[in-house]
């Protein structure tokens, strides 16, 4: 093979490497699609959140703080601009605790599970209007926790677990939380808020089928 041919092959290889490198360096085109990314962290609870959720009127105490480890993780990512330093403990429990954490245009519900947490962040407008949906998370026992946040006017929610089985769950600190046994059929969560009665389907995350 002549030198010029060798050089030509080398040039092609290098060009291919450069092309690959540029693709790799600019990969993750979907990063911008993350709904909570790139939002400036709030430094104080927004007025709309305070108006909708009385739990934020309460002076923040040491019991309102998430674990240092979890707070650090959530603070570093600050999804939707959430600030764990402004959290309030809504429901304390021996195994799982539910915190309300203000974000920018959203309020996050943080349910501790082990040392981690399940997090959902409905828009503040939905929370204020009484249209925020519940979330579900599977626990170590196989039981399923159902949780959510609601505005001041809501005092309880109704969890439907069968054709006629309904459980009233009291709201504490603008939040609700209940656990149903593994295998319990999940139907809906209902409550009456500023927008009237709403009803949301609920799902057992353990029952989604393998693809």
């Amino acid at each position, binding site marked *: 093979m002549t030198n010029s041919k060798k*050089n030509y092959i080398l040039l092609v290889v290098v060009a291919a490497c450069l092309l*690959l490198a540029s693709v*790799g360096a600019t990969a*993750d085109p979907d990063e911008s699609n993350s709904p909570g990314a790139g939002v400036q962290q709030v430094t104080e609870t927004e007025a709309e959140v305070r108006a909708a959720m009385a739990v934020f009127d309460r002076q923040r105490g040491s019991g309102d703080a998430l674990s240092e480890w979890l707070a650090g993780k959530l603070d570093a990512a600050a999804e939707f601009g959430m600030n764990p330093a402004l959290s309030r403990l809504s429901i304390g429990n021996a195994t799982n605790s539910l915190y309300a954490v203000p974000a920018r245009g959203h309020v996050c519900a943080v349910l501790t599970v082990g040392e981690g947490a*399940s997090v959902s962040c409905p828009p503040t407008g939905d929370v204020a209007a009484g249209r925020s949906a519940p979330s579900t998370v599977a626990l170590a026992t196989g039981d399923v926790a159902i949780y959510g946040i609601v505005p001041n006017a809501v005092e309880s929610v109704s969890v439907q677990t069968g054709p006629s089985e309904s459980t009233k769950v009291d709201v504490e600190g603008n939040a609700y939380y209940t656990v149903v046994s593994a295998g319990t059929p999940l139907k809906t969560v209902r409550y009456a808020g500023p927008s009237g009665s709403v009803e949301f389907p609920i799902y057992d995350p353990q029952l989604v089928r393998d693809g």
Partner: protein
Amino acid sequence: MSYSRARLAVLAVLAVGAVAMLIPAQSSAFTSWYNCINKPSDTWCDGRANGTYDGQHSWDYNSASNPSGTPFWVCQRVYKPSTGNWLVGNSCGVDYIFHVYGNVTCVCYDAEVSQLSGSGRDIYGFADADY
């Protein structure tokens, strides 16, 4: 130095540059943006089919999001195919849900998402092995 040697030197410098660009791109692979395109309802997706897949890792964060403007339920889990088990914390919520897992050490998990709209939909997943 001959002309061909000089050209080789330039090519070598370019090759080193290309490798240098590739290394940071690969080291950021501790995160995975995996899209599941037009996935059937009620089925887990790791992005391998109709999407993107970044392999198994010690994912300690996973999120599922609905890219459409129409609300529907999405779910996430961190799954170990070799055993058929998953980390505690499978969760579902409307439009966006994420779970912060504890300390995950085994580099053996798939991050998966699903949607429960009742028909085929796109779902986006994001997993992080160093959240």
